[in-house]
């Protein structure tokens, strides 16, 4: 059966990368469509009218939006090389950590980039607190998924890419090797997996991009 799979993304979106990784890990062939978010295509607006964002997965003409929803869809549709455990309690645990990443880790890191002064300090503190919990969760494991990458690794994988970029841009330490040995080791291991390594956006472009975002924020205040 000819399957049509398309991924709408930007070159840098960490959320879109999750979809790319999941499809690549499962060996699914797809077409990539790069969006310019300052000039969104009619197709993107048609496929994701509610949020108007990337990523969007198009499978046999049906669109799915929201990266974590897309990950579950990919898991439901292509059942080989599972990204979630079979046991319901372990699945619930995986989903808990994915949600923790979205609700706690990501906003704290994002606000460290976007805020200043006391607000930035608080965001940075919150980020460090969240890393402590991730460090605990990694005890006895190489990857969040155990021996192999799972959905939690994919959901948190943006850390392995962006933390060092933001540390450079903000001149602020997030994941110190000595404070977070397991998390540091996880980032290195994750980043080195061939499927992951091959899709990292160019680092210099990312540094330039985030410097620009930071400067724009500072200028508006």
């Amino acid at each position, binding site marked *: 059966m000819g399957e049509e799979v398309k991924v709408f993304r930007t070159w840098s979106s960490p959320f879109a990368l999750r979809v790319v990784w999941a499809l690549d890990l499962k060996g699914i062939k797809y077409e990539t469509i790069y969006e310019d978010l300052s000039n969104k295509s009619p197709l993107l607006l048609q496929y994701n009218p509610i949020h108007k964002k990337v990523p969007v997965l198009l499978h046999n003409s049906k669109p799915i939006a929201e990266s974590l929803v897309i990950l579950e869809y990919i898991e439901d549709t292509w059942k080989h090389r599972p990204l979630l455990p079979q046991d*319901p309690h372990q699945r619930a645990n995986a989903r808990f950590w994915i949600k923790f990443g979205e609700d706690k880790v990501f906003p704290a890191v994002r606000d460290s980039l976007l805020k200043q002064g006391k607000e930035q300090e608080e965001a940075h503190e919150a980020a460090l607190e969240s890393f402590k919990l991730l460090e605990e969760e990694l005890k006895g494991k190489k990857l969040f998924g155990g021996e192999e990458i799972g959905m939690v690794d994919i959901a948190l994988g943006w850390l392995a890419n962006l933390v060092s970029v933001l540390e450079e841009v903000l001149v602020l330490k997030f994941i110190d090797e000595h404070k977070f040995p397991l998390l540091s080791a996880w980032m290195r291991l994750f980043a080195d997996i061939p499927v992951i390594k091959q899709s990292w956006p160019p680092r210099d472009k990312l540094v330039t991009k985030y410097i620009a975002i930071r400067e724009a924020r500072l200028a508006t205040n």
Partner: protein
Amino acid sequence: MADEVILLDSWASMFGMRVRVALAEKGVNYEYKEQDLKNKSPLLLQMNPIHKKIPVLIHNGKPIFESLIIVQYIDEVWHDKAPLFPSDPYQRAQARFWADYVDKKFNVSTRKVWTTKGEEQEAGKKEFIEVLKVLEGELGDKPYFGGQSFGFVDVSLITFSSWFRVYETFGNLSIEKECPKLIAWVKRCKEKESLSKSLADENKVLELVRKNLGME
């Protein structure tokens, strides 16, 4: 083997209610333990040390947290009865998308309606109505968000109906006037026994909010 199912919850919580609804739909017997959130019990703190929040489902000694994660867990474990998800992956994705919308957009929009005043409240009310209309649009002419049968999105949203009187009273608005189809859906859901016994009484919730705000 007898299952031991315990729910740590707080009677007025729309998140805790989601779990009650799911358990009732599946006909699961469980022990309900009301939690005092101002004076958290050792059990709650031990079971959910990270967030220290309700609801927490404890199944044969193992805790599960986050209401929608718990609902998915319940659906997976007690899969023989009243499935909350369709079997088609695309429809499952749609259900996840809309439940996420309820959490990300709708839940957030309710706050400003009853906790703010003046311009901020007016803006909050406008957003709240807009979001409700989007949800009403998604419901369309279906009896439930899940289609012919009550499903995951219905569970995620219906529990907020216990708080409608709070939003209407403090926001000075009528949800029925703005979204009649949505209110019709609420009434339809409440005809189900699983819901009528799981949802907190709207008037009692309003009373609680007034009491907490020192308005008695």
